[in-house]
């Protein structure tokens, strides 16, 4: 197991390096950090001065090397726009995104597993078909539209209908200007709901399929032959096996979430990684963009690795071979 992890990590490093080169070149080629300055300033010396200050006049490989050596040492430069350190920006926003992710996966995992188990045990029932239909709905849903509709119908409509002073659920940011009761939850609810829609849709179908697979196994029949009640067979023998592949899928999906909440955070003005990325992109803030890509890549790789490890831990057949 240890050798496996070491080998995987060792393999990831060159991948990360090559990716960083490509991303660096890509971002440099496509983003101009001086765009704003070009438009806004009247001083003809402003642009070349800033260019020299940022080191943008050096050849690309030199720039890359300078950036890379700085990156691994933890000095990621400062945001061109906010002038704060990129590391600080990312750290702060990462924490906010993390909150969304944690609540999101908690909610989604519970719902998805429950739905999946139920659907598998009552295959072809009305509820099963309903859940399948809803899953398709969730998988086909344009996230940004769902968010907008959610805001419309869960924030504005209730407020109008019930003539409220404050909406029940908030759709902007992390907290209100003046503290409200249950402020945190009320701000969290809609973004988490939005992010859960997709997760639940995919996971519940996967869980259903996994359960169906497992429940047709011989050892389920053996468990019943021993006299175990149906529920116990389902949960103790079935679920335990069916969860193994699901947890690996979940781990991979979670890894992708760190860079994947761009739309949700934008619409709900949630100050997280996604919003940070969009702002940096629009402003051409490469000092933020580059570490952003690296950080999210590390999370993706890390969680993919976790998925593989989990599989080994949960399945004795792999753990002990």
């Amino acid at each position, binding site marked *: 197991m240890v050798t496996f992890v070491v080998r995987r990590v060792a393999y990831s490093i060159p991948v990360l390096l090559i990716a960083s080169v490509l991303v660096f070149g890509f971002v440099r080629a496509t983003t101009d950090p001086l765009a704003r300055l070009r438009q806004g300033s009247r001083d003809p010396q402003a642009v070349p001065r800033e260019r020299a200050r940022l080191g943008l006049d050096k050849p690309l490989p030199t720039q890359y090397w300078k950036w890379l050596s700085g990156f691994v040492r933890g000095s990621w430069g400062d945001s061109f726009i906010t002038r704060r350190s990129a590391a600080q920006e990312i750290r702060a926003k990462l924490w906010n995104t993390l909150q969304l992710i944690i609540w999101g996966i908690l909610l989604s995992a519970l719902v998805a597993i429950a739905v999946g188990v139920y659907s598998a045990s009552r295959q072809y029932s009305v509820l099963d078909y309903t859940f399948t239909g809803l899953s398709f709905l969730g998988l086909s849903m344009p996230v940004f539209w769902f968010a907008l509709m959610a805001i419309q119908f869960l924030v504005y409509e209730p407020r109008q209908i019930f003539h409220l002073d404050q909406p029940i659920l908030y759709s902007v940011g992390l907290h209100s200007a003046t503290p409200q009761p249950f402020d945190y939850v009320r701000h969290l609810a809609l973004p988490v709901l939005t992010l859960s829609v997709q997760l639940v849709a995919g996971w519940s179908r996967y869980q259903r399929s996994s359960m169906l697979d497992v429940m047709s196994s011989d050892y389920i029949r053996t468990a019943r032959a021993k006299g175990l009640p149906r529920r116990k067979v389902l949960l103790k023998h079935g679920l335990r096996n069916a969860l193994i592949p699901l947890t690996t899928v979940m781990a991979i999906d979670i890894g992708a979430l760190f860079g994947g909440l761009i739309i949700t955070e934008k619409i709900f003005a949630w100050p997280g990684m996604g919003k940070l990325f969009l702002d940096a992109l629009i402003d051409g803030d490469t000092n933020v963009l580059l570490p952003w890509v690296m950080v999210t890549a590390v999370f993706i790789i890390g969680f993919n690795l976790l998925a593989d490890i989990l599989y080994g831990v949960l399945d004795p*057949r792999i753990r*002990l071979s």
Partner: protein
Amino acid sequence: MTDLDPFVDRQKPAAPSGSGEAVLSIRDLRVQFPTDEGVVKAVDGVTLDVYENEVLGIVGESGSGKSVTSMAVLGLLPKSARITGEIFYRGRNLLDLSERELQRYRGEKLAMVFQDALAALNPVYTVGDQIGEAIQVHHDVKDKAVRAQVLHLLDLVGIPNPKARADQYPHEYSGGMRQRAMIAMAIANDPDVLIADEPTTALDVTIQAQVLEVLERVQDRTNSAIVLITHDLGVVAGVADRVLVMYAGRPVETGNVDQIFYKPQHPYTLGLLASLPRLDQNAEGMRLYRIRGQPPSLIHVPTGCAFHPRCDYAQLPEPCASLEPELRSVDDLDHRAACHFAEKVAGTSPDDVRPAVATP
């Protein structure tokens, strides 16, 4: 019978030692499955009795209905199955029981050993856990006592080093050991009826013998009735007291082992015996015998006697293609065959059936 006769091997008496009440009685069991292509008649009128302390061997090819019969006893058939008839366990009709009531019998009074032990054991729990679970489902016993019992059971079925083995996972066992662990799990609560569905099929011949020996040992201890389901006549010969031969979901012959093997009265049984390769005879000039034709569709079962398309004794169309023969005895009362011409068959020996090939 000569000394070379491979069938004389055991020291147990031929007759069932428990007399009187049958532990398990099946009366006219029929099981049907509706499918897209039609109704599959998996079991079509099985009647049998099993007594204490005996081994009943049920023999037949795939599709003969033997496994479905045993699953019906334990109530493990899928919901789509249409079941009629009666299955009596010590007087109670199991088919009348609710799922909850059946659960109390399963694993305790009626137990089953399945064929592929690697697939039949949960890969994520230790063998000890699974055997212990069999006990704890039916008895409120403390963990320590359960553990002791588990070790005792593992020892009983001949698994070395039970303490270490109990904490291992099924994939860490060898094939024969796994099967023995399954047996240990099945007998954990001293069942009255132990059904073994093809317990040796997936194993090497030498391991087969070990597993069968475990079954016999187990019976000595528990006095349970054993129903041994198999397609392998050799297994039956070595272990069974009585035999039921099935074909196309129907019983075709029943009797004790000697009667079945030495004086078969049904053409199918005769064909099965004839197709066994004999090592004790001069094989020169002999061809391997096979029953002509193929196993029938269970949706479109042949009319009358299901075996008639492949039968050398059949007289068509009357009576073999029109009248389904009933199980009836020719000489002994407890030796019965479902054939219109059982008397004719009774006189034939398997050797006579095998064709000879003229040597050049």
